[in-house]
């Protein structure tokens, strides 16, 4: 049994002019210690997927269909109170922008201790001891002193290390990292990513890495799920997906990577023409068809199912044409 299993998840935002379906029939699994990448362009629904797992979708959004199973338990049916014992305890999140994530008026120590004490019955002193240990793990020098400092006394990279340390406090089973390095200086992005991976390995944690950078996903994840307009359109072992993308959209993404596919000098970053549709105005049929080079009649009329393709059990694609001799 997978550690986390999401089945047919639907998330809607109740907007004034009707419901906006942000996630439509999203299913995936995450095993113990596994590293899953979630990619897709802006607005595809990656963050909503991450937050849905801990039932923390911002208003007016909510889960309207589907199941979320963690350790066999239906998280989607948990009460707010029960959910609180999961969040930050068994499933930790790392947000995108470390400059915005920590509370500016509370010391780092307070923000670490409160997290531990929300989930464990321990004293402040014990909590501080654990906090110091975790800060050492993320290579923060002289952590005892740092506990009494405020977020603004740290650089962006340091803050993201602290946020990683906070995520580690309770030894969670899963870390959901939503673009953990995008807001950082390019020079330290790799450093932070390496640290995160090293710690996930050392602490037996599964990682759900949300990003729109397929390059990062190719380097660090074992499996990847490609999202488009609120749907999973392809999922596979990372290595297979990068070497042999099947969905036309994924092909486009891979070709856009430097040093891949049809990428030549003149056309160094091949972009997929067009933009992702607004979720309120999705055309009938396959949501990608207006941008697809291979588009046929069936694509305009019928929504494709996510189907298993080829010999690998891990490879699923949502395209009418794949595996039918056409693609």
């Amino acid at each position, binding site marked *: 049994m997978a550690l986390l299993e999401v089945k047919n998840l639907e998330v809607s935002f109740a907007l004034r002019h009707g419901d906006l379906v942000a996630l439509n029939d999203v299913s995936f699994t995450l095993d113990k210690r596994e590293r899953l990448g979630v990619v897709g362009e802006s607005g595809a629904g990656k963050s909503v997927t991450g937050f849905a797992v801990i039932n923390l979708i911002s208003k007016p959004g909510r889960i309207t269909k589907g199941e979320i199973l963690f350790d066999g338990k239906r998280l989607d049916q948990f009460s707010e109170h029960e959910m609180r014992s999961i*969040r*930050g305890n068994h499933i930790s*999140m790392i*947000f995108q922008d470390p400059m915005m994530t920590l*509370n500016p*008026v*509370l010391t780092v120590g307070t923000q670490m201790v409160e997290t531990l004490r*929300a989930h464990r019955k321990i004293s402040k002193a014990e909590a501080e001891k654990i906090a110091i240990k975790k800060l050492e793990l993320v290579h923060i020098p002289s952590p005892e002193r740092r506990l009494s400092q405020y977020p603004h006394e740290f650089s962006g990279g340091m803050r993201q290390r602290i946020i990683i340390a906070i995520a580690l406090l309770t030894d969670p089973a899963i870390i959901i990292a939503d673009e953990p390095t995008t807001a950082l200086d390019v020079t330290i992005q790799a450093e932070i990513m390496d640290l995160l991976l090293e710690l996930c390995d050392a602490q037996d944690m599964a990682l759900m890495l949300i990003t729109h950078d397929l390059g990062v996903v190719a380097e660090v994840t074992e499996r990847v799920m490609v999202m488009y307009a609120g749907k999973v359109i392809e999922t596979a072992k990372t290595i297979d997906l990068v070497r042999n993308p099947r969905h036309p959209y994924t092909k486009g993404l891979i070709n856009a990577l430097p040093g891949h596919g049809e990428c030549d000098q003149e056309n160094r970053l091949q972009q997929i023409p067009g933009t992702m549709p607004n979720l309120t105005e999705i055309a009938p049929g396959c949501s990608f068809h207006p941008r697809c080079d291979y588009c046929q009649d069936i694509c305009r009329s019928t929504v494709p199912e996510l189907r298993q393709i080829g010999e690998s059990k891990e490879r699923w694609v949502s395209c009418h044409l794949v595996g039918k001799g056409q693609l």
Partner: protein
Amino acid sequence: MFAFIVRRIIQATVVMLVIGFIGFSVKHQLGDPVRDLVGISVSIEEREALRQELGLNDSFLVQYGRFLKNAMHGDLGYSFFYKRPALDVIFDKAPATIELVFAASLIILLISVPVGLYSAIYPKRFFSKFAMGVSIVGVSIPVFLTAIVLIYVFAVQLHWLPSYGRGETVDVFGWESGLLTIDGLRHLVLPSIALSSIMLPLFIRLIRSEMMEVLETEYIKYAWAKGLSRRRIWMVHAFKNTLLPVITVGGVQLGILIAFTILTETVFQWQGMGFMFLEAVERSDTALLVAYLVVVGALFVVVNTVVDIIYGLINPTVTVASR
């Protein structure tokens, strides 16, 4: 801290100089100290001689200089009505006003914080909508109307509370306090409610809108993601950040509250500086008017300094010194 104090003193000095200048200009234009000093029977020649003697024919600047010099020695002129130094008169009246402002601020604090937070957290609930509606209406009701309604209902009709005067007061080291007797406190109720009603709606709305903004931030979402309790998120994470802008605005508003005591004290015959000020205007007691301006200006500076210190204590990114 030292730099902060020095800067504060310089700021205060500049503010006081400006207020002093305004006060003096008023006095220079309106007041006729000769009239204050002599009776009708004194002839025009004698008056002119007195003017010369008092230096009233000197240039404006020379007179201003003299005014400043005297002010430094605590001499803001002589009230011809009370036949006492103006500053002494003010100091006798100040406790009444300060206690009134203090009580009104307390009421504002105790009501606006819970109501503002509640209506930010539950904006759709009936009580929140009700509070918002009332506060919209409340902003536009003038203070004397509130005061008259309060007097009519609670004093005239119900006979629950006294409607004028300070009641029984106790002398505490020269400070005439009405806070220590039941009678004094009973007298304080209606005036302080009337005074607080000016700012209360504004504070409720301010706290609500700041809190709502804070609740949308990333760090609050992160706090939820850490599995903290609602209480902790609302009362510690969100409230502390809400307080910062509220304190900044609050400091200024508290100063304005002092100005509003003039109206409130008059309606309730409250023997404070505001009541005295209106009387002084009627009597053209210019020395008293100037002294009032200077003392209120000084109060302003003190209040703002205290507010800045509190702000610095809550906001770690602003060291007190840099404000």
